[in-house]
């Protein structure tokens, strides 16, 4: 039982982390066709926000609750800055945007290294997250369960935003037909900016969750970002449902592979799994529009 529940529960927590990271990516990719390779560094910024908040609000029990909105705003503002200064200038050049954000990511990583040091800092766990819940022989840390709660809340909030708010309707209109949305009065540029803010802010939230598990580290983003991208690739576009399923599938599969082999072999196996999956279901990953082939 143990060999089954342990990877299953730990994998679910990993999946939840991936989900928070992937939600923001999927949102900006779906909305603007922009792959933001600096998204991982926004995650890192969230983690450092949690660290810095603890310097100010020394009570760890409270500071994490302050850190969550703070990280959302910090990462969101970073995203907004990126959108306004760089991405806005290169619409309809998706691959170039991808490369530019790679540069931004490198820059931010080095900046974190210079400001906070290469080693990384611990983030104290609030006392109400200490301890664990025994489930079929696995002592499930509350910290891991907290990630899942966080992911569920983030997902629900985003889904509600998209479905019920007028902003959500504008996003969906822009995704489906940008030109048409403009002609009916949607200010697509403003929508883009808000989308980028929200998507990047989600990365900040994810960063706080990561910091509780592994502390801060300038390379923290790179550890998660590729898996998060694989989630977006496997999940397909424009469907939160796909992202959710893919995130937990990748998280749990990686966890099981790691249990059977090793952490590094698990990465190899997960990558192979995604490529094989694309053989079976490339749908949603490409669109064939016969009236305009350009």
């Amino acid at each position, binding site marked *: 039982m143990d060999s089954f529940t342990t990877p299953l529960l730990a994998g679910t927590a990993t999946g939840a982390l991936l989900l928070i990271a992937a939600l923001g990516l999927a949102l900006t990719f779906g909305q603007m066709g922009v792959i933001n390779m600096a998204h991982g560094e926004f995650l890192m910024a969230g983690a450092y926000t949690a660290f810095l908040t603890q310097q100010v609000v020394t009570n760890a029990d409270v500071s994490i609750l302050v850190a969550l909105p703070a990280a959302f705003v910090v990462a969101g503002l970073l995203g907004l800055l990126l959108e306004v200064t760089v991405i806005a200038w290169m619409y309809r050049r998706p691959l170039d945007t991808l490369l530019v954000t790679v540069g931004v990511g490198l820059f931010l990583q080095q900046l974190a290294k210079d400001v906070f040091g290469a080693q990384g800092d611990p983030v104290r766990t609030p006392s109400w997250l200490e301890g664990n819940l025994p489930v079929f022989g696995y002592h499930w840390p509350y910290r891991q369960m907290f990630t899942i709660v966080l992911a569920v809340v983030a997902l629900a909030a985003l889904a509600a935003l998209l479905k019920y708010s007028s902003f959500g309707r504008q996003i969906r209109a822009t995704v*489906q037909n940008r030109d048409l949305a403009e002609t009916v009065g949607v200010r697509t540029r403003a929508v883009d900016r808000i989308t980028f803010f929200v998507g990047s802010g989600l990365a900040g939230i994810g960063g706080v969750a990561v910091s509780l598990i592994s502390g801060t580290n300038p390379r923290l983003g790179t550890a998660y970002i590729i898996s998060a991208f694989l989630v977006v690739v496997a999940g397909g576009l424009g469907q939160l449902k796909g992202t959710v399923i893919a995130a937990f599938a990748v998280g749990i599969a990686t966890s099981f592979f790691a249990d059977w082999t090793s952490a590094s072999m698990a990465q190899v196996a997960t990558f192979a799994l995604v490529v094989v999956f694309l053989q079976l279901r490339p749908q949603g990953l490409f669109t*064939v529009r016969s009236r305009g*082939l350009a």
Partner: protein
Amino acid sequence: MKLDHATPDEVGLDYLEIRDLTVQFDGFTAVDAVDLTLIQGRVHFLIGPNGAGKTTLVDAVTGLVPATGQARYRNQNLLAMRSHRIVRAGIGRTFQTATVFEQLSVLQNLDIAGGVHRSPFALLRARRGVPSYVADALETVGLADLRDKPAGVLAHGQKQWLEIGMLLVQDAKVMLLDEPVAGMSAEEREETGALLQRIGKERTIVVIEHDMDFVRSFADVVTVLHAGKVLTEGTVAEIQASPEVQEIYLGRIVEGVVEEGADHA
């Protein structure tokens, strides 16, 4: 080389035969059990209101969307073949928005179209001179003077002609043209029509068109599609006399307006 193909028809004409062709998208039937026989030497027109299934029909025949039924050409069922194989079997098409390779010259655009039967080794060599079939196509579509211009600078009509030229070079026996004269001036339309009649003698030409003047001037056979079905077929005069067609075109029955706002997010 072509001896092993079955004789197309009693009169020795080439033809594309479509039987019971049906295309469904998520339960919506875009093309509904269409039967059509398209015969060499005539310029066929497919007309019908928006959403009638004209482009979808062409998509199905060229392997862009999956379909049931049959589309037989020289004893091959096109519906079971992949797009580039269908092209190699002699079926060529154009698209509503002209898609040419903007950064390549007119000559290079045409030359690529002739590359289907080249061996991998031949692909590794540079082109020497202009192959005769490319030169012929340049003359036929009237772009000889613009041979070395990048295709991106061509006027809209010239791009459409270049696309037709590419079909000539790839030696398409069946040409499916999706609104080739949309956006053209009256003069360009005339030239395009004359071009189609010129090249149509040895080929099977199918044109999707909205412009009724153009249809009247150049159609040999007209098929009217409506809501995925063949409504009627005949000469221009017959079609114009048909009460059903008049109802659709003049009665302005608003149909097929899909409910917007369905959740796709």
